[in-house]
């Protein structure tokens, strides 16, 4: 596959790892924000290739992980109503609410359908005029324009049986929240490349300046991540804290204007609670006034919020990058993908799940590390 395979070249990766090893003179802690980047790092063993001075911590870049449990509960409640079709991306089906997940609701007879594009939900609404179709709109800025398009299409077609349960979150406020955390150890960021593809780089300048952290917009393939680390380390070693663009084949400084325009029309910025991180102001998206009638919370009741359950689970600390999964006492022992204690193990994008899946065995085959 072009524009993917060439970024997985082992020899090139090792050259980048060598370059990083030459550049680094002291320990640094970097955070990669996006769950997709976490996945690539753990799956390809990028952290194993890096010199031990560099610690990669994994950020809250998993919208599935940070969706409050009450939204899952609401989705299940709506799905179980007579005549409702609940549409969702596959990722959300296994996230547990207080009492089971959407997959379980489906096996109990609720009409829950996996969609691959938000427009699929609109198609379903058009095809089932006598039924209420609700789309569970989760995601970061990357998915927001597509979700916005679903609302725009529904409006154009005058559909009265379509609504969206919106639990969108924004990345830059989460990065600020991480940096504000008392236990924060992050010194530089690999920003989420596809979020930047949509939003551009403008939001990161103020963060880099205020907190003195370099921020590199980074892609998702091994060479992207390694180059992102290299650029970040080079800045740190030189005492710089600027915004850089590693992922220039997809990211332009201004981002995707057409996408932003649609987001501005359909959504507005609101405060959001992040599972494991609490309330973060101006960190989410809700439907704007002109589209408020598509809000599932208006049709089916508002989502109640409650405190996060605590217990042994440290997913909040993992999401903030203050702990790594293997540092948790329950990891792999009392907490596994089959019996997860918290959201970072439940979601296949969560850091704990990624470590569990790919690091059951830690030795590099035939290697010296």
């Amino acid at each position, binding site marked *: 596959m072009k524009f993917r395979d060439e970024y997985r070249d082992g020899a090139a990766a090792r050259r980048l790892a060598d370059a990083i090893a030459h550049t680094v003179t002291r320990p640094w802690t970097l955070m990669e924000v996006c769950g997709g980047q976490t996945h690539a790092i753990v799956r390809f063993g990028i952290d194993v290739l890096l010199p031990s001075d560099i610690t990669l911590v994994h950020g809250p870049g998993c919208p599935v992980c940070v969706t409050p449990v009450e939204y899952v509960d609401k989705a299940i409640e709506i799905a179980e109503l007579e005549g409702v079709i609940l549409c969702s991306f596959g990722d959300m089906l*296994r996230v547990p609410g207080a009492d089971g997940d959407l997959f379980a609701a489906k096996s109990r007879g609720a009409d829950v359908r996996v969609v691959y594009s938000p427009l699929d939900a609109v198609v379903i609404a058009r095809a089932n005029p006598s039924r209420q179709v609700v789309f569970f709109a989760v*995601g970061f800025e990357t*998915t927001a324009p597509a979700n916005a398009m679903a609302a725009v299409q529904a409006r154009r077609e005058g559909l009265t049986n379509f609504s969206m349960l919106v639990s969108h979150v924004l990345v830059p406020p989460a990065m600020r929240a991480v940096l504000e955390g008392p236990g924060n150890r992050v010194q530089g960021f690999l920003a989420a490349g596809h979020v930047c593809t949509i939003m551009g780089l403008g939001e990161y300048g103020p963060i880099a300046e205020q907190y003195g952290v370099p921020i590199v917009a980074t892609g998702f393939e091994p060479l992207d991540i390694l180059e992102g680390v290299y650029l970040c380390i080079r800045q740190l070693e030189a005492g710089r804290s600027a915004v850089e663009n590693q992922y220039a084949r997809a990211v332009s400084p201004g981002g995707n204007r057409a996408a932003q325009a649609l987001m501005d029309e359909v959504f507005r910025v609101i405060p959001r609670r992040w599972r494991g991180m609490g309330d973060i102001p101006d960190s989410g998206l809700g439907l704007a006034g002109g589209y408020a009638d598509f809000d599932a919370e208006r049709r089916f009741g508002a989502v109640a919020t409650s405190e996060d359950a605590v217990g042994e689970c440290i997913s909040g600390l993992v999401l903030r990058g203050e702990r790594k999964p293997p540092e948790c006492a329950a990891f792999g022992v009392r907490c596994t993908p089959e019996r997860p204690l918290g959201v970072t193990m439940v979601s296949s994008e969560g850091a704990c799940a990624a470590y569990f899946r790919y690091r*059951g065995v830690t030795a590099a*085959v035939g290697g010296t590390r």
Partner: protein
Amino acid sequence: MSGEETIQLAHGGGGRAMARLIEDVIRPVFADEELARGHDGAVLGVDGPIAFTTDSYVIRPLVFPGGDIGSLAVNGTVNDLAMCGARPLYMSVGLILEEGLPLSLLRRILASMRAAAAESGVRLVTGDTKVVDRGKADGVFINTAGIGAVVAPALIGPQAVRPGDAVLISGDIGRHGIAVMAARENLGLEMAIESDCAPLAVPVLALIERGIAVRCLRDLTRGGLASAAVEIAETARVSIVLDEAAVPVRDDVASACELLGLDPLHVANEGRFIAIVAPEDASRAVELLRGYPVSANAVLIGLVRAAPTGRGHVSCRGALGVARAIDMLSGEQLPRIC
């Protein structure tokens, strides 16, 4: 009986309607003299040790690119017997039909079974038919049992696997799972990916008959290569180390997996097997397998090592040379956006 007709509850009632269904639709498709004798059971002879297997087939959709539940059922049974190092001989077929199933679809499925049986030389010698209420079966459920004559000189199974053994695969992975998922989920994908559903007895028996020291065989089904390798490693208490670059995946299958967020190692197959053989026989085994169409892309993909902790596990060396742990899927595979 015309093509527009559908299965009714009466067809399972044990009376005339059922007798007509069996006589007119089911039996002619198989035309086996044992079946024609019309007894409750078949009386057969087998020399030497027998392999005995059972399986049920509940796939949705019933028809998919590259096959249907009928060819799946016959090939699946043949393959289970082959994995025991046995020549497939006889099969039973239990049909559970859902009220409302179009007769034309039933005929099509039965014709597939006949063709698959003829291809493998396995005889369908006894069967049963039941009908359940609408909504109680996905159109058709098929249960089979298979009997084969063991030809392998030594017991084939995880217990025979030893450190140093070579792990071979008979061909590229992931076609069946992608083909079925695309057909079932209306993904709107244009692709030429068909199920790899196929009988595997011929190349497997060739390995055995040509004196390859076969330790263990496993056909890849649900859960893909990962599940098969993990099951063997855990039972045999060894470490299996795979080389990702060596595992064949067709470009379009790899692309479909990317699009859906799936790992090809976990995607289902129906016409592929792994063979663990003695290291000195590995090259000869690969060459032998490549002489048969269904295993024309056979290749060495890994090695067996001792498991230091005594707990069996599988790891895979990736593109960057670093190993990652491979486990079975937990739960059903769902496509991701994240």
